[in-house]
């Protein structure tokens, strides 16, 4: 009897084994590989209603110019954080308060192409104070405060064009660094493009960050030869004090770069000893040159931004600072330039190379000390490739773009052309695993993956091509991210999720480093806005020539005032609206018919201003656009607009019969 049961049991197990083998076989054949049910992937990305994600992932908005905030592992979009582009949804870049944030030396620029977010660090570990991101097109760096999740500061970078090897921060957030992708004449001048070679310059900009306020200021610009500076990475731990920039087009071609900039067998990684340059400029070194660039700051108490044009910048010629800059030869137009958490290894992702080149920081120092140079470029010593090489990851894939690290000594490199992520061992250079991605990954991201302390639980592939991954939406698709579990020996694909714009790089941080200090409201008592009305008794409408200022407030569920008369065609009406709520998640909207700019979304305790230029006689409604309460629909009012020559006096009221 017993024997029989055991036999049955064994055959049951065998059948089960067969079935699961078959399943596995089917899934491999399927695009995407792993079925959620077979691997419990669904369980691992499921964040049940009411529960919270483990990580915030900040993914650059790419050509949207904004910053997408997602939760991991769910992949849920939590917020689109406006940075460089106008956002009519909440009036960013349209309200009088925020318009100065988008001011530049080119005037008001309402958009940009945002690329590489990086979270502030202390001792090489994520601290969750701020996140920085670069505007690639009109060179700018933005700082976003992670209490309010609001862009608090934007600084323009002069002498730069295509602010791409940015915005990466040193391990105590001493500097946020911005390198130019396109070299340009400095100062700009009317000259023949054919005279590029030897005449154009590439500015690498070091922006100091005030540790209390986060305020940015350009400390110096290193004026490098006219190569293209693609990506960069700070040294960590033992290499703290150095910064590494990949270059391409060391050929200095100015036309048909896809061919002409791909001729040299090796381009360079520029190793910059910024501590030496810092000492040099602190002791009066460098040359102040005329410049014109905007520095825009949003004040948290006045809720108002100011834009200041700065007229001078300190430049440093690398030749003037011995020991400041060296070139590390790196095969074939390297893109990503990544330093492992120990700071020893500098990975050059030569995007046209079949191998991955890894330089050794220790060997680099040794080569510098023993002057093992292999010539120079524009007076900058070139180190000997063989002397600084730590190792080569052989034939890992095609088109390596970027490498990220976990906390167990593994590296993860993205391959655009062969559309895969490859895991390899730092030190042995052995390939451990490879997984296909759908399709053509750009950067990858591990939370804290470019710090001393990565949180090696997830890898996110930021794919460039989407094709058939979602229900089709015509020719224009979102981008697609893919989440891998990297806790095991093999990477395991858990989830696809769509992302806004085109995320280039991303940065993620454990929720508990940010969430507890997330702001709920602005205190009305701390509101120092020039046009705020903190008391109902201050509500009023004032005329100053053709300008009319409406000092208005709002609380569930009315505007005060809600009836205004005496406005005339041709007036410029400033609605200064203060939200009197002091309760979490009770913003009010403000919308007026025919507004040529946007609406406002005013947070509790804040004041914002919308300009309205009425063009037609009549009685026109205003209303709240955010469903604020059970009486949201009642939250409305009227503005009477009279002919330009009318002599109706200004009057305003609330609750009068």
């Amino acid at each position, binding site marked *: 009897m017993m024997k029989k049961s055991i036999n049955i049991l064994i055959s049951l197990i065998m059948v089960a084994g067969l079935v699961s083998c078959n399943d596995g076989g089917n899934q491999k054949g399927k695009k995407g590989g792993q079925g959620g049910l077979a691997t419990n992937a669904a369980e691992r990305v499921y964040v049940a209603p009411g529960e919270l994600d483990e990580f915030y992932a900040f993914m650059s908005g790419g050509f949207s110019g904004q910053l997408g905030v997602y939760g991991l592992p769910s992949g849920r979009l939590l917020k689109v954080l406006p940075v460089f582009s106008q956002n009519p949804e909440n009036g960013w870049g349209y309200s009088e308060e925020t318009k100065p944030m988008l001011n530049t030396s080119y005037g008001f620029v309402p958009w940009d192409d945002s690329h590489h977010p990086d979270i502030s660090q202390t001792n090489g570990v994520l601290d969750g104070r701020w996140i920085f991101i670069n505007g690639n097109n009109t060179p700018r760096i933005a700082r976003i405060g992670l209490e309010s999740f609001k862009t608090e500061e934007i600084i323009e970078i002069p002498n730069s064009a295509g602010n791409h090897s940015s915005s990466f921060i040193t391990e105590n957030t001493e500097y946020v660094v911005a390198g130019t992708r396109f070299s340009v004449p400095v100062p700009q001048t009317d000259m023949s493009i054919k005279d590029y070679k030897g005449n154009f310059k590439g500015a690498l900009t070091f922006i100091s960050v005030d540790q209390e306020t986060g305020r940015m200021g350009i400390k110096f610009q290193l004026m490098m030869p006219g190569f293209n500076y693609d990506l960069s990475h700070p040294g960590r731990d033992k290499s703290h004090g150095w910064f590494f920039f990949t270059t391409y087009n060391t050929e200095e071609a100015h036309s048909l770069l896809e061919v002409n900039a791909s001729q040299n067998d090796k381009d360079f990684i520029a190793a910059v000893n910024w501590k030496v340059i810092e000492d040099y400029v602190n002791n009066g070194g460098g040359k102040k040159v005329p410049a014109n660039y905007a520095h825009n700051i949003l004040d948290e108490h006045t809720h108002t931004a100011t834009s200041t044009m700065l007229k001078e910048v300190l430049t440093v010629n690398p030749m003037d600072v011995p020991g400041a800059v060296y070139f590390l030869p790196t095969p074939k137009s390297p893109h990503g330039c990544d330093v492992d958490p120990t700071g020893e290894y500098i990975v050059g992702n030569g995007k046209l190379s079949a191998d991955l080149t890894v330089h050794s920081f220790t060997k680099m120092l040794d080569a510098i000390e023993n002057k093992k140079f292999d010539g120079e470029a524009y007076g900058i010593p070139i180190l000997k490739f063989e002397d600084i090489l730590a190792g080569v990851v052989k034939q890992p894939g095609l088109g390596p773009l970027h490498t990220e690290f976990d906390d167990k000594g593994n590296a993860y490199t993205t391959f655009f052309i062969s559309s895969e992520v490859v895991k390899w061992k730092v030190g042995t250079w052995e390939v451990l695993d490879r997984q296909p991605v759908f399709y053509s990954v750009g950067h990858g991201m591990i939370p804290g993956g470019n710090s001393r302390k990565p949180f090696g639980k997830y890898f996110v592939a930021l794919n460039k091509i989407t094709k058939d991954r979602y229900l089709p939406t015509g020719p224009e698709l979102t981008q697609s991210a893919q989440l891998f579990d990297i806790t095991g020996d093999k990477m395991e694909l858990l989830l696809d999720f769509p992302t806004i714009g085109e995320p280039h790089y991303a940065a993620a941080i454990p929720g508990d480093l940010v969430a507890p200090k997330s702001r709920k*409201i602005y205190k009305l008592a701390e509101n120092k806005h020039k046009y705020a009305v903190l008391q109902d008794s201050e509500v009023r409408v004032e005329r100053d020539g053709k300008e009319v200022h409406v000092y208005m407030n709002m*609380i*569930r569920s009315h505007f005060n005032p809600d009836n205004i008369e005496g406005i005339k065609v041709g007036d410029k009406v400033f609605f200064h609206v203060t939200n009197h*709520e*002091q*309760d*979490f998640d009770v913003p009010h909207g403000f919308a007026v018919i025919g507004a040529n700019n946007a609406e406002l979304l005013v947070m509790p305790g804040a004041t914002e201003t919308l300009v309205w230029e009425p063009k037609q006689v009549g009685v026109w409604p205003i209303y709240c656009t955010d469903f604020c309460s*059970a*009486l949201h629909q009642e939250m409305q009012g009227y503005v009477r607009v009279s002919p330009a020559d009318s002599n109706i006096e200004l009057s305003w009221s609330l609750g009068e019969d």
Partner: protein
Amino acid sequence: MKKAGIIMIIGSLLLLGLFKFPLWNIMLGAPQYPDPLGMDIYIEGIQGVEEFDIQNIDGLNHYIGMKTIPKVEDMWEFEVFPTVIGIMVAIGVLIGLLGFFGKVSYKWFLGWFVLMSVLGIMGMYDFNLWLIDYGTDLDPKAIMKLLNPDGTPMTYKPPLLGYQKMLNFDVDSWPATGAYMMFVGMMLTVVAFFVGKKEYKAK
């Protein structure tokens, strides 16, 4: 009666907790208030559990026409209660001291307890009257005028003690730290009475 006197003094002094800690706490939770709004009722006034809770409770209450939560100057109780408690502490300590030196009988301890209990019940009665007034004296121009199933106008008196569902709110009304200290203090005065009685008989 040394021991009994000391217990009496400690018991009376525990009432001083009412000057530092709330007597009562009312919490209002709702689907849209996962972090409930709350008010702490002190003998000297009402405060929000969080900085803006009172303002937000008033904001919600205006829909159903309730008066705003009284400020210190709006209610005589906030002046009288601290005075009464202060006097009762002083009397209790005095009786305790006199008992300690054998100048008064242990029966005074019970006398103090009875007086304090009467005052306490009067206080609760007054508190309940306020809750009734607050919950029923509604603005005739209230935005929402709701009716009970039997057709009578709905009122919103929060419970004196315990839990009650009121519209979308879960209301919890319970004694707070100050009340527990008062309760323990008053029990100690009863203990003092029995200890005193035992000490008296042992003599």
